[in-house]
């Protein structure tokens, strides 16, 4: 089955629609599916819910979909870098569900593994536990969190082969594998599609079974906080 598509817009055809729950990879601006986000903006799909650790910045990442009011709700752990996000949230235009970062990652992983719920210590005794089932194991309290089953996953990897086997690079891996796993359909954008057989099977980070469509493109890969040190001596 052909998985390689010519462009992000083409890969979204017949898959993207209004009101979807989309799981997106990335941490800050690192490892975000920037080409697919741009294509979603151009597509115009609205009332989208994003499960994504962050919401990008005003003019990059999910931020570009906030500007066009395409996002109805965010499920995130940290949204502090985005002024437009704050404005829409404080004015009630945007819904926000805070998840602790590890809970969000595990909700995605669990969804992808067919696990509808799991118990975690994270958030016990905090507002995160409000309304959630509490269960005691070995004398300690845990809260029930639900797996995320997304309609669509959009992720960024470094390399893919034509069957969708993926390799990520350094900390750009982050939320991409769990986000990829939890979607009914997963579209991945990569810097390079290599011939099937050229990746070492022992070095695959995410097997192609999770990947349905692949595109290759040029990435800006913006740096959020450029920090350096002086050369010694």
């Amino acid at each position, binding site marked *: 089955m052909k998985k390689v598509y010519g462009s992000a817009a083409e890969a979204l055809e017949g898959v993207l629609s209004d009101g979807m729950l989309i799981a997106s990879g990335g941490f800050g601006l690192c490892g975000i599916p920037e080409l697919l986000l741009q294509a979603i903006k151009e597509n115009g799909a609205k009332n989208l819910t994003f499960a994504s650790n962050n919401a990008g910045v005003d003019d990059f990442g999910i931020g570009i979909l906030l500007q066009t009011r395409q996002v109805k709700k965010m499920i995130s*752990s940290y949204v502090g870098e985005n002024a437009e996000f704050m404005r829409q949230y404080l004015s009630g235009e945007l819904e926000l569900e805070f998840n602790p*970062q590890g809970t*969000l990652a595990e909700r995605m992983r669990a969804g992808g593994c067919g696990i509808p719920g799991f118990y975690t210590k994270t958030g016990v005794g*905090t*507002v995160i536990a409000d309304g959630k089932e509490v269960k005691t194991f070995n004398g300690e309290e845990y809260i029930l969190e639900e797996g995320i089953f997304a309609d669509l996953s959009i992720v960024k990897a470094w390399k893919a082969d034509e069957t969708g086997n993926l390799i990520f690079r*350094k900390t750009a891996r982050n939320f991409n594998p769990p986000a990829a796993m939890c979607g009914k359909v997963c579209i991945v954008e990569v810097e390079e599609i290599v011939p099937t057989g050229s990746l070492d099977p022992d070095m695959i980070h995410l097997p192609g079974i999770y990947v349905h469509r692949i595109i290759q493109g040029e990435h800006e890969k913006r740096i959020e906080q450029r920090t*350096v040190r002086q050369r010694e001596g």
Partner: protein
Amino acid sequence: MPWDRNQMAARAAQELEDGMYVNLGIGIPTLVANYVGDKDITLQSENGMLGMGPFPIEGDEDADLINAGKQTITELDRTAYFDSAMSFGMIRGGKIAAAILGAMEVGENGDLANWMIPGKLVKGMGGAMDLVAGVGRVIVVMDHTNKHGESKVLKSCTLPLTGKGVVNRIITNLGVLDVVEGGLRLVECADGVTEEELRAATEATLV
């Protein structure tokens, strides 16, 4: 004289032992890495890395290599990368020996508040709730009082909690306190700070 930021970081570094895997929060905790000396410490960055190295030399920045504060960093010989689910698996699973992090308030029962101020900007908890729930030892490094001179070491936190009964040790500009049965126990005062001064700046019960 109370400790300054670097002296607090240096004191916090004394908490770390050879062989530990440690997570350092943003702010003063980040400075702790400068004071570990010869100890063999592996730093975890919760966005998916063990063995975090220093900031890169100018020109060597890599957009694919950042820490949890989104700063560009470098890798070491021992570095390993993994995804966010595994990263928080090792945090929640108790594999990380200690987390050193900042706080807005700490309660004498070990409650920690460091993620939101209602009515003001709400940024999110990031990985803080997972860290305090999961790691072996939680060490808070913060100023003893806020900018209005009010104690941040309280009988009971007033802000929304990050974790309940999770803090083990508090290192402030005035000294070191442990969370024990019934309140906080004074471990030491900063050089030149008297016990009286520390008590006066502390709302929590000292036992």
